[in-house]
């Protein structure tokens, strides 16, 4: 060990280290400090034993407490499910109309419904229900199968052209492909349909053909019949192409979309929540 030099000015020991003629004074750390440091090391060793710590060739050391962040998440999810169970009971018991009237349930359903909608419905209907060609806009006030809470609930539950035995079905005949109407007649009725929404002129023939073939589903005035899923033809909202060619094509060989039946895929409470949410997207008619 090197001899210890004392700095005469301060009377303090030096460490023996010297830089450019300046000698470092030795101000020793208190012993409790180093013991605290050792205690921390021991604590770390304890941690290795108690918790998952070291990687091994095929995995990692598990720790004697059996803790895992995945297990932690499971517990948290269980706690969430527990805290939600009371709410779920309320949703089971209440009708969609009751939910919409109850402020507390409405707030919960709006938040939960939004989540369910984004996971299950948004791929076709778009976020916020903005729709896409062939997939109805849910954010407007035009409803093919009805925009009342009970109507929406039924559509969600049973679907349209879905697999449920009571699913909503509306099949428009293939007037052109199955040669139910002549080409000229189809042209005339297409013109009439366009004129319903204020686009172009139509002949009286078209009106007659419409009343004979189309009015049963689309209504005498063309405003649609929601009970049978006949869309309103008088507004500017079109599920498919709204141009003259598009209307013609739909009469010739109609396209039909499919909405899955959600009963059995979503639980009752979820269906009710998403119904309330979808109802609100349309402005809550």
């Amino acid at each position, binding site marked *: 060990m090197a001899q210890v030099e*004392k700095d005469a000015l301060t009377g303090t020991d030096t460490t023996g280290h010297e830089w450019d003629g300046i000698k470092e004074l030795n101000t020793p750390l208190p012993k409790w400090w180093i013991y605290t440091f050792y205690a921390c090391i021991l604590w770390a060793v304890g941690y290795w034993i108690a918790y998952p710590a070291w990687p091994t060739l095929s995995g990692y050391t598990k720790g004697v407490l059996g803790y895992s962040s995945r297990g932690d998440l499971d517990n948290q999810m269980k706690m969430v499910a527990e805290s939600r169970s009371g709410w779920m009971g309320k949703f089971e018991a209440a009708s969609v109309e009751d939910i919409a009237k109850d402020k507390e349930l*409405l707030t919960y359903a709006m938040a939960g419904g939004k989540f369910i909608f984004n996971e299950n419905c948004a791929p076709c209907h778009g976020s916020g229900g903005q729709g896409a060609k062939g997939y109805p806009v849910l954010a407007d006030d*035009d409803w093919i199968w009805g925009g009342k809470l009970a109507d929406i609930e039924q559509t969600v539950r049973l679907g349209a052209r879905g697999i449920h035995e009571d699913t909503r079905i509306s099949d428009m005949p293939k007037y052109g492909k199955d040669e139910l109407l002549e080409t000229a007649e189809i042209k005339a009725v297409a013109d009439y349909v366009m004129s319903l929404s204020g686009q172009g002129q139509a002949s009286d023939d078209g009106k007659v053909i419409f009343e004979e073939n189309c009015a049963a589903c689309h209504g005498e005035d063309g405003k649609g019949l929601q009970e049978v899923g006949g869309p309103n033809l008088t507004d500017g909202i079109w599920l498919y192409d709204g141009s003259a060619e598009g209307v013609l094509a739909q009469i010739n060989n109609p396209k039909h979309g499919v909405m899955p039946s959600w009963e059995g895929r979503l639980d009752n409470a979820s269906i009710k929540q998403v119904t309330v949410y979808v109802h609100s997207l349309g402005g809550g008619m």
Partner: protein
Amino acid sequence: MDANTTKDASSTASTKPIKQNPEEKTIRYADRPEIYPRNIKGIYRNVKWITLWVLLGIYHIVPWLRWDRGEGVPDQMILMDLSGRRAYFFDMVIWPQEVYYLTGILILAAIGLFFVTSLFGRVWCGFTCPQTVWTDLFFWVERQIEGESNARRKLDKGPWTAAKIFKKGLKHFIWLIVAFLMSFAWVWYFNDAPTVTVEILQGTAGSWVMATIAVLTITTYLLAGWAREQVCYYMCPWPRFQGTMFDEDTLLITYEDWRGEPRAPTNKLRNFENRGHCIDCTMCVQVCPTGVDIRLGQQMQCIGCGLCIDACDGIMEKMNLPKGLIRYDSISNGLAREHKKPETFHLVRPRTMAYVVILLVVMGAMGFSLGTRSLLDVTVLRDRAPLFVTLSDGSIRNGYTYKILNKDDSARTYTLSLKGLEGASMTVIGVEKEGAKQVMLDVVPDTVGTYKVFVKADKKNLKGKSTGIEFILVDNVSNETIVHDTVFAGPGR
């Protein structure tokens, strides 16, 4: 001078020779010298007792004071409700989004501390710091059980007799009880004090409450009982930089070396001709709770409690010498006395004035902000998907999420109306179905009310793709009004 010092001749830093000490090794870790402060009576001791009991009294009594805020709201005068995310101070209820008030309070506390320190030195350290207060209390407990400083030193050195074990055990037991009482009070500030007290006594309190009390009890016991001055020496940052607030006019604990030196023990004749007044009795060192010799001058370890003044004044009185060999005074006054010049005390100095200005500015800003603090706030989120919707009658509709923060402790009804878009009407989910120019929105006390608002307008009234509109919310009771600018999107012309 020996050979080694000539080698150091090139040294520019130290002109003094460096002594050799061959027997010693370099010490890297030092034992903590046990300090046995002697009890002393005097002015500063009394001030310390008074501040101790006043501060502990405030600390323990404040959470029990009640403040009526009406039904369903905590009635504790000062309460930090962490789980409810509210802080209650008298009539004020602070929400999490107003946490900047806390920043303001912390700035005020820091600058206030700097200000007081620049005027009066380490009054915080010496009298009001919790570490000082609790250490003082623990010293008192120790003295009651183990006796005066000499008895304590003797007891520590002596063998482990039954009496020693009993005394030590009793001391640590009482220390733990005191630490527990101090920690108990802490949780009163974060819970309803009477409720949580009953819960703790019944053992039904939440695990966080129990863990907080346990941790604080252990840290209080360790820091005030065992670590003591080590906290000030090694843990606390404040002693390290509080010196920058000092100047020659700051009141400090000062030893008048011009009068005291050269020091020498006195004899029976009490002849103080041609010598200093310090009789080297070391009373000032013996009473010091941090083990400082104040005669060495200003030092980081001195907490400025003034107990050495009490000690020295008593000795000076016995010696028939003037008191104040150690005094609480500025360095400039010490020099003035040395050179027989008039003493002055400068309260107004650039440094103190700077602190006063900062304090006033921050106080003013906080006061203004609190005074004009609104109990109402709104957030409006415009729907992005879809931007707008064309309805079957050709009109355009936009959706908004309208949030009302009612910070008041009573339920309020607000009137929401619209400006900037002719013929526009609003529907609100769960409130207004038909479409109206004005809607009434209720928000229960102390909550955020969230409403889905749809605005419908005729296409011909839109000004292109984006029309500026204003939501106007009026509190029906106070008439407070919040106007929120947003836009109404449309398909363009």
